[in-house]
């Protein structure tokens, strides 16, 4: 082996001794060391000019797995899916300019659903900032309203602290996305590394004090209620309070309904569960909300898709509202008994107080009434032995996976059918874009879920519209051999929009027909994946069984009845007792 030229050798030795003696690292190395210290095992990203030094450091790093997606939007949704299914923060990385702006939808999506996410973006060098330089975009400015916080790092000495603060902010209190924008020269400058650095956040407070008076009032109201209803949302999932929600409901025999984000926080398989409430919620849940004299909102934000007309929502009810974010209390619906605090802690306090009381409310008439609604208005659809009904596919997925799969969805009719027909008994199993309603979320999110849970069955239930919004990620799935099962409920239409056009726009189907679709089976084959087209009801089950049994990614193209609509339905802005398609 020939020795290196003297000059180069000297340079290398100098670098090594520098590192040994002063313990200094480049910004890129500091970033990765800080991520390791935060427990990050996997990041999703896409390289580019401004992040070259970071990718160079990744090349040498042995502890962090990087998943190369095919679009930055894929990276941020994958990080989001990872976070939703594990409860740990997801991490994604993109270059400056278009790389950063391609993250925007995913960041907004995580913000709306309060998902802990740390997004790292490269930025042009400090000296080039503000000069409209090549691939420069003001990403901290762009993301200010859709992040919990954002940083532009201007000194390499701040970098470790910024990363530490970012994870702290993203994961504590009401979780949310935090963005760190790092100019390219910061990643090559050197500084020492001590971790964890001290937090410098005097204005950031997390409410740890639970108001005992409010707990007492809430307990009293619960014991006096004749027609109570527990309404559980994403906050219960985020807080890890499924157990406490279950204890509360079962202890008092209170019926439970949930928002889309709350699915899984209380088992669908309990007699007390009424399923989802709101626009496409069950009739029994909406009627119960309408007639309740006590609504206990747990980690919910009373979104318009739940409440319908605010002026008539739960108008006879006393409202107990529990949320970690005080700004949610009274934002949309007046809370008679607001309780600010971590849902799990609040429920524990409540349970303590309730356990000490011997009286229990007599709810027999209320529960009988609800049972009557359940019997009279179950979820239903017209069965067919000729056409594949989309609801039937979901039911079959449920049966084949025994209700134990991780279920991701895109956005649209298939999403609502999944929420209605896939019964879940665990939190963090239903991975769906709630607040923002992002088509194209499901496929990359499923990658994050599968990477976090390599041995579990992961489904992405999609529509033929949504799947085409991020279908480039099939390449990521192929490259990483992820055994995701993709069930496309293909109705050759943007079904949900079409449904609204049918119901509210006199059947003027403006630009909702999706002719010119790819052959999804050939698409699967093009990526080296498995593809099946299913056109007859009797082939649904065998196709699903084949996909689930196989370690390959399957794209299952179910040609479903293209006129099927999602019912029940409360029209937007109507009172929730005004239900179409009961």
């Amino acid at each position, binding site marked *: 082996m020939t020795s290196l030229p003297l000059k180069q050798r000297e340079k290398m030795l100098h670098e090594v001794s520098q590192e040994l003696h002063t313990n200094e690292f480049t910004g890129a190395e500091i970033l990765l060391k800080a991520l390791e210290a935060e427990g990050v095992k996997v990041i999703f990203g896409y390289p580019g000019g401004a992040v070259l030094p970071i990718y160079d450091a990744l090349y040498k790093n042995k502890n962090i797995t990087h998943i190369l997606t095919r679009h930055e939007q894929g990276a941020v949704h994958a990080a989001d899916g990872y976070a939703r299914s594990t409860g740990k923060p997801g991490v994604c990385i993109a270059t400056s300019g278009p790389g950063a702006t391609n993250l925007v939808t995913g960041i907004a999506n995580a913000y709306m659903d309060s998902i802990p996410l740390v997004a790292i973006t490269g930025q042009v060098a400090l000296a080039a900032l503000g000069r409209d330089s090549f691939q420069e975009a003001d990403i*901290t400015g762009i993301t*200010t309203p859709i992040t*919990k916080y954002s940083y532009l790092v201007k000194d390499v000495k701040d970098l470790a602290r910024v990363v530490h603060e970012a994870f702290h902010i993203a994961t504590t209190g009401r979780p949310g996305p935090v963005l760190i924008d790092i100019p390219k020269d910061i990643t090559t400058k050197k500084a020492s590394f001590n971790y964890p650095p001290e937090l410098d956040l005097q*204005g950031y407070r997390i409410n740890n004090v639970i108001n005992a008076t409010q707990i007492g009032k809430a307990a009293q109201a619960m014991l006096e209620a004749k027609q109570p209803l527990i309404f559980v949302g994403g906050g219960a999932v985020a807080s890890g309070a499924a157990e406490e929600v279950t204890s509360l409901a079962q202890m008092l025999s209170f019926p439970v309904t949930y928002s889309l984000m709350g699915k899984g926080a209380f088992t669908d398989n309990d007699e007390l569960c009424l399923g989802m409430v709101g626009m496409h919620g069950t009739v029994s849940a909406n009627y119960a909300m309408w007639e309740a004299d006590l609504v206990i909102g747990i980690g919910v934000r009373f979104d318009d898709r739940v409440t319908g007309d605010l002026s008539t929502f739960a108008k006879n009810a006393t409202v107990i509202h529990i949320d970690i974010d005080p*700004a949610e209390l*009274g934002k949309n619906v007046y809370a008679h008994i607001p309780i600010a605090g971590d849902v799990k802690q609040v429920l524990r306090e409540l349970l303590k107080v309730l356990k000490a009381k011997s009286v229990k409310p007599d709810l027999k008439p209320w529960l009988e009434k609800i049972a009557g609604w359940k019997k009279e208005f179950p979820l239903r659809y017209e069965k067919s032995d000729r056409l594949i009904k989309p609801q039937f596919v979901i039911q079959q997925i449920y049966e084949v996976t025994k209700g134990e799969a991780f279920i991701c969805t895109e956005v649209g009719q298939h999403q609502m059918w999944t929420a209605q027909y896939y019964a879940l008994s665990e939190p963090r199993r239903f991975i769906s874009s709630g607040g923002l309603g992002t088509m194209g979320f499901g496929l990359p999110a499923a990658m994050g879920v599968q990477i976090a849970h390599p041995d579990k069955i992961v489904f992405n239930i999609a529509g033929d519209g949504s799947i085409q919004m991020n279908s480039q990620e099939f390449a990521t799935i192929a490259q990483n051999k992820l055994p995701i099962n993709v069930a496309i409920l293909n109705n050759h239409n943007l079904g949900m929009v079409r449904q609204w056009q049918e119901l509210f726009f006199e059947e003027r189907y403006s630009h909702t027909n999706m002719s010119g679709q790819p052959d999804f089976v050939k698409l699967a084959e093009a990526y080296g994946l498995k593809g099946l087209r299913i056109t007859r009801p009797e082939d649904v089950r065998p196709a699903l069984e084949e996909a689930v049994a196989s370690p390959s990614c399957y794209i299952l193209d179910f040609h479903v009845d293209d006129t099927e609509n999602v019912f029940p339905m409360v029209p937007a802005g109507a009172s929730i007792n005004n239900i179409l398609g009961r």
Partner: protein
Amino acid sequence: MKHTLTVLVENKPGVLTRIAGLFARRGYNIESLAVGRTENPAISRMTIVVEGDDRVIEQVGKQLYKLIEVIKLTDITNDEHVDREMILIKVNADPAIRGEIMQIVEIFRARIVDIGRNSLIIEATGDEGKINAIESALRPFGIKEVVRTGKIAMARGAKSKNGRNQEAL
């Protein structure tokens, strides 16, 4: 109803953007916003006058508190407080009518801070009512330009809005 909020924030880049953005995005009406450093250079104080009913003001407060840089927020509308605004008015003033203008300036205990050939710049401080009054008193002469600072306010008494008792310092 108008509310006067005094907000202590960390003196960091982007704070003003975040607060202004929050008001714009959620549709709150800012009447005025004044910001400046406090006795502690790491902290700035904003005085925000915002219009809204109690429910809106409650949301404004809660949403502001969610911003990481917001350290403390107080609604001093119903507390005893001193509030001041400053105005600079450039008014037409031929030598012939200067005397009349100077009388008005005298009455309002304002000051003339610049004289041009045909104009004067007048500086006045006071509460909103006084500032409005001097502006309308000078309007007949022809106002060429007006700059107002927006209201700054401070609660009366010993208790400091930094959350510390001044006696303890």
